[in-house]
């Protein structure tokens, strides 16, 4: 069954082109003329794993501060100017990259490119801006992590999984270190990493390569090289000699949940073909209702209400795979852990069937085609790979490489990477049982309409 695979070859009607400016900025153009709009993205090869010790969260904090101002953009005006031009903008930070993007009408590309180039080197920060924004990122941490026991557990599991590599440090930062972050910390990270030769510009949409080249040379091209080679040297992970279990008891947990992480290579760090095999392994093992873990735990054994998993494939130094199961009303974390172990053992011992591989491959290859429907998704798809050091060809040949993966390849990566010592198990338990207010009786509701 390779209908989807055949269709994938019909996509990418126009060539994606790439070139490098004299100052080292890599530029990728993805033409798509269906709608008169463009997406611009600038990816800096700098993320939370590049932070100096003790300054966790500075990469993300800087991302916020990049919206403050320059000599030309008054404080707080960056996004407002984009909006007045009918555009939308935002940014995100992860362990390896920080990316900024705008979506605008095609005739506004010159404007947003000039603005993005300007803030690559001309950021201006007042002490008040920094202080207020630090309160904002602390609120963001409360929203994303502290208010949610599932996120707290994930943070602890990552810290346990990576004993030495900074992937174990949360991207948003540890609260006590975030509280101490300064303007100087932000500017020092900025000056070290924000430079044309450490960035990739991606423009997707209703544009031609020559037009982008001319605009990029007029804007980003005027920025001198940083000069000093930007090196990303991170402490690497030692071999692991023992598995770790992290248990969090929290009244807000809802239902008992068990998660299992394993360190595995990413597309950037894997030996040729291994990441593709892991991708398909995880789709077969843990993606949706047809997956192994769902069939075993939810449909057959009925120990879990839901189960699944994922593959984080974009890291520079390493990736990871994860499995999760949410207990049914009458089951315990021991039941879930035993059942997950059973699925892993089965994958290691007998691998997957040809039928499972065919179905998984059809849907995986189709993702590539579906992504081609959206220029912003295309820009991201290329950005993630290129920022990790891969090439445009690597991205375009990905469906072909998926076609070469065999059931033997999948069993081999299952045996090699689903290894107990490289795993962390996380257990979340709703203890003590908590009854809140949804539904008919607001059991914990207090201060009814205090007025």
């Amino acid at each position: 069954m390779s209908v989807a695979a055949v269709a994938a070859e019909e996509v990418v009607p126009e060539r994606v082109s790439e070139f490098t400016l004299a100052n080292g900025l890599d530029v990728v153009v993805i033409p798509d003329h269906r709608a008169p709009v463009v997406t611009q993205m600038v990816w800096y090869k700098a993320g939370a794993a590049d932070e100096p010790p003790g300054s966790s969260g500075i990469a993300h904090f800087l991302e916020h501060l990049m919206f403050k101002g320059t000599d030309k953009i008054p404080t707080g005006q960056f996004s407002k100017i984009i909006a007045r031009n009918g555009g939308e903008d935002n940014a995100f930070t992860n362990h390896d990259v920080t990316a900024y993007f705008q979506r605008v009408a095609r005739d506004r590309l010159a404007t947003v490119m000039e603005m993005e180039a300007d803030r690559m080197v001309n950021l201006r920060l007042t002490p008040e801006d920094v202080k207020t924004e630090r309160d904002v990122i602390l609120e963001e941490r409360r929203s994303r992590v502290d208010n949610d026991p599932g996120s707290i557990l994930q943070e602890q599991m990552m810290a346990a999984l990576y004993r030495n590599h900074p992937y174990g440090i949360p991207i948003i930062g540890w609260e006590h270190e975030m509280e101490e972050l300064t303007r100087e910390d932000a500017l020092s990270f900025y000056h070290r990493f924000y430079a044309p030769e450490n960035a990739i510009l991606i423009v997707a949409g209703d544009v031609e390569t020559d037009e982008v080249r001319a605009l990029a040379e007029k804007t980003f091209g005027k920025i001198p090289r940083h000069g000093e080679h930007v090196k990303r040297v991170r402490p690497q992970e030692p071999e692991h000699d023992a598995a770790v279990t992290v248990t969090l008891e929290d009244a807000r947990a809802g239902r008992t949940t068990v998660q299992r992480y394993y360190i595995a290579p990413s597309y950037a760090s894997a030996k040729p073909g291994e990441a593709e095999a892991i991708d398909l392994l995880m789709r077969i093992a843990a993606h949706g209702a047809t997956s192994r873990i769902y069939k075993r735990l939810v449909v057959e054994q009925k120990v879990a209400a839901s189960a699944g998993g994922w593959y984080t494939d974009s890291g520079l130094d390493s990736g990871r795979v994860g499995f999760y199961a949410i207990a049914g009303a009458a089951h315990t974390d021991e039941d879930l852990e035993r059942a997950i172990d059973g699925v892993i053992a089965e994958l290691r011992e007998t691998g997957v069937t040809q039928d499972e591989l065919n179905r998984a491959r059809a849907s995986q290859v189709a993702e590539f085609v579906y992504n081609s429907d959206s220029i912003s998704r295309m820009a991201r798809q290329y950005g993630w790979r290129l920022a990790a050091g891969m090439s445009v060809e690597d991205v375009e040949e990905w469906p072909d490489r998926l076609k070469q993966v065999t059931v033997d390849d999948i069993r081999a990566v299952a045996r090699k990477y689903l290894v107990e010592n490289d795993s962390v198990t996380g257990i979340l338990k709703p203890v003590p049982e908590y009854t809140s207010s949804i539904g008919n009786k607001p059991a914990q509701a207090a201060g009814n309409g205090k007025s």
Partner: protein
Amino acid sequence: MVRLGASLAALALLATPAAAKGSGMKIQEVTSPGGIRAWLVESHANPLIAMRFAFRGGASQDEPGKDGVAYFVTAMMDEGAGDLDSTAFQEREQALAMRMDFDAGRDVMLGSLQTLTANKDEVFDLLRLAMAKPRFDEDALARVRAQILAGLKFDENDPETVASIAWDKLAFHDHPYGRPVKGTMQSVSAITADDLHNYVRRVFARDKLVISVVGDIDAEELGKALDKIFGDLPEKSELAPVADANPTLGPRREVIVMDVPQSVAQFGLRGVSRHDNDFIPAYVLNYIVGGGGFSSRLMEEVREKRGLAYSVYSNLYPYQHGAVFIGNVATKNEAVARSLTVIQDELGRLADEGPSQAELDSAKAYLTGAYALRFESSTSIASQLLWIQIEDLGIDYVKKRNALVEAVTMDDVKRVAKRLLAPDRLLTTIVGKPVEPAAVAGQGAPG
């Protein structure tokens, strides 16, 4: 320092972006041989077809005491149909790389389908089967019920969800809009296969159906496909009438204690319905209040100036039988009272003085310029065209829409601000452990 030539400040004042003037997208009105209608935008650039459709009805068709039936139905749509049990159906879906989703809104049951052109015939047939011959087998029912109950258990501990459900209850009481779309532990536990079959029979009917299609298919082929997909459904729906609701106003603040470091507050007022002459001015106003991200007053005052929150926003919800204006802020427990005061003051200021001319101009520049961004992909175009049909705005709405926004005057916005923004009538639910008691002036008043 690098010199970049032209002053960037000047760039803020350019004319309307080219894309706002229309992309020449052609919407065809297709009627199938069997009389089923759809809007189509042909695009053969990629081998993909996107379809969105809706049955008027939605969660407000849940019978009293059976909250969550519509939502339950959406979760069961790929759990087996015709001769295929759930596993067979789902494996078929995966092999065809088919994307099918259902979603229960308050007023509509939404469907979404994406397929590769190469697989379209089989995919259309599977969609037909899912809607015309759902099985709702006992084991699938038990499995999905357990998932929904687990989801509700998590929701009980999610401050934003708790605040939202509590707000709906306070505003709408026993009206269908006051009931939770996902149901309650109690109601979901009691839902049967018959309830689901009844819902599908009453709601999945051709007289309340709207459809939009974008992608690699022409009008003639689509016409045949429409008959194939939807032709087996009953001609007439059996919808229960839904009364118009007049949401209860405050001033009222209800605190629901939850042991979290950050409280979430949802605040709201009566809104403006989609066919009210004030809707477009209200839409522009909402952008200025809290719909416009960093360009909004609430973001400026709460986050940018004071660092009180990471997120603060507002939205208009023009439900068919009762419109509301709702905002949300998440702020540490120590700062809840201060955040709400800032918000209330800002709403009051806008009601009294209206926005500045610059704010109004910026709002219109964004809303008109960014409209084209909603038509970037096949799925987003299909979604836009679907909502235009659901809201009955006419096939020429895409062309007219920016002119409607351009026509909004300062007087319009000031009038609507006075009508809409009543800071002394706010209804607010707070979930968390706010440090200061949630005092408000006056007693909660009936609407």
